[in-house]
């Protein structure tokens, strides 16, 4: 992968952080059992799925300036497609996955077309409202367990002997590969002429339009791509958890995704991955603190969020840049 093999990029502080995070994700199935903490393999599998969602959100939020407060909707669509198809006995991944991704794209198209008519706060609110609509739909879907959720008895079946998702390790490395692929795709998009237009529209929409670019159409395309990517995260989540419930698309999930992106560093390629890892590890750490803090960990976590917003501009990656680099960020 060019992004990783670019030695110059690796040498920057944020490159080093990204490398550490990627190595951690990649080697966790070996590290964790070795130190007698195989539990963390599951934690990392889950974390990487959220990282995929965060990477997809970063694409529109970090590079396109579209603050979507309803991104969890796509996560839910991906997961529910797997769940519902499995419920009806369709377990072939060759059917499930394309259906899930196409559905995500279609919903992205509709939601994007509606919400991109608005700007600023209106955009935040309308994406929130549209996602809540789907949330309520999933709660009322009696057939599919409504808010008890839907148990998925069989993971997606690729029909390939050695590539069986029932094997946890295979699933783990599939998630890992998809994560890297998503980062790679983001990188390609961001640096393509298409991405330049989207980024240009973020800083000055009017100018891009004056230059003759139909920015809304560009933004809509980015919105759909991000939706599909997040739908993919949902597909993987349904396979990992073997369960899906409306909770997966409720609005706090969207808020957490935004936080992962900002925590890691918005508009930096690996930022959301770092953000997701730190987010989950920190929550796990705080929630399992015995005593008062463990019982009331949100009293620490809430102010932490505010502090990150106030003092860590550019998230962890930005912070690392400022701490260790005289030249500032390489990007």
């Amino acid at each position, binding site marked *: 992968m060019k992004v990783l093999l670019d030695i110059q990029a690796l040498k920057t502080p944020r490159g080093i952080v990204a490398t550490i995070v990627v190595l951690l994700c990649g080697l966790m199935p070996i590290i964790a059992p070795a130190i007698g903490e195989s539990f963390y393999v599951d934690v990392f599998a889950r974390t990487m799925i959220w990282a995929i969602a965060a990477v997809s959100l970063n694409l529109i*939020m970090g590079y396109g300036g579209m*603050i979507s*407060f309803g991104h969890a909707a796509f996560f839910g669509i991906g997961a529910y497609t797997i769940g519902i198809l499995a419920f009806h006995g369709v377990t072939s991944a060759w059917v499930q996955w394309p259906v899930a991704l196409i559905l995500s794209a279609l919903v992205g198209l509709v939601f994007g077309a*509606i919400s991109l*008519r*608005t*700007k*600023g*706060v*209106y955009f*935040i*609110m*309308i994406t*929130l*409202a*549209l996602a*809540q*609509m789907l949330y*309520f*739909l999933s*709660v*009322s*879907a*009696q057939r599919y367990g409504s808010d008890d959720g839907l148990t998925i008895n069989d993971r997606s079946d690729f029909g390939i002997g050695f590539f069986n998702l029932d094997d946890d390790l295979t699933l783990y490395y599939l998630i890992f590969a998809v994560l890297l692929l998503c980062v790679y795709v983001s990188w390609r998009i961001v640096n393509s002429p298409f991405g330049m237009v989207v980024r240009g529209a973020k800083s000055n929409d009017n100018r891009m339009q004056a230059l003759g670019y139909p920015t809304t159409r560009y933004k809509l395309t980015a919105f759909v791509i991000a939706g599909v990517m997040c739908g993919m995260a949902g597909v993987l989540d349904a396979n990992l958890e073997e369960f899906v419930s409306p909770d997966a698309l409720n*609005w706090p999930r969207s*808020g957490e995704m*935004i*936080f992962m992106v*900002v925590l890691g560093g*918005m508009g930096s390629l690996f930022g959301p991955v770092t953000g997701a890892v730190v987010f989950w590890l920190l929550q796990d750490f705080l929630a399992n603190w015995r005593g008062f803090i463990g019982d*009331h960990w*949100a*009293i620490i*976590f*809430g*102010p*932490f*969020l*505010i502090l*990150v*917003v*106030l003092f860590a501009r550019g998230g962890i990656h930005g912070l690392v840049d400022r701490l260790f680099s005289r030249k500032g960020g390489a990007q």
Partner: protein
Amino acid sequence: MNYVLFAEQFLNGFQLGMILFLLAAGLTLVFGIMDLVNLAHGSLYMLGAYFAATFSHLTGSFVWAILLAVPAMVAAGIIIEMIALRTLYARDHLDQVLATFGLILFFNELTRIVWGPEGQVIPLPAYLDGSVALPLGIDYPVYRLVIIGCGLAVALGLWVLVSKTRIGMLIRAGSSNREMAGALGVNIATLFTVVFGIGAALAGFGGMIITPITQAEVGMGEIILIQAFVVVVIGGIGSIKGAFIAAILIGVIDTMGRSFLDLLLLFILPANAAEAAGPALSSMLIFILMAGILFFRPQGLFPPKGAR
């Protein structure tokens, strides 16, 4: 179905609209004047409810509880503004969304630590606790009429405040052109603090008066907050008139939808499909409405003049 049922449902919707208005009024002011997205506005609603419950417990009087809790909310609002929100005005919407999301977590947990996880109740005095016979043979709970009355009174008070007083003039100046207001010698920082204090009191008041019919609970603010956002966005950000009209609209449509949608669906769907689709559709109704309105009027129904 008969007209009495219909009339009662309309009143019910109107009452929900009043609560939504109390939240939305503060929200839209803060949005419009300070350009601040405050997700934690629902926490103020919750705090108001808990304050009133505590005062009601201490004084044994519902009226005293409200009289004490409102100034307490103004104070709480001012403190929150000065400590946490002031630094956010200069930030972009994303930072505001995140930081106030953090505030929600904080306040929910704080409430749980201080008051415990169980709900808090506010008993009503006997004279508010029954129902009253209205014309047309409608039997209606007294207290719900009181809520409607409170909502209308607050709306009137706000209208007087904004259009007839000096502070209202400043608010109007601040919302249409902040730099100009600053140039005219208005102390913007103080103005913002005052406006936030008013918004906090309104939201808290909403929480206080709803608690006798529901109860004070951790997380009660988030559920209604999203509805209040819908109201603000439909009404047009910064417009109190818009918030008032949109709140009633949402309250009535939501209530009417819950009561009559399944009956309407019976005309086009078989019985069991209508029974299944009715609740799903009625809980989605206000969001569909919002999406529809924004599609045709991206700035809401009453975009304030001189909007950015």
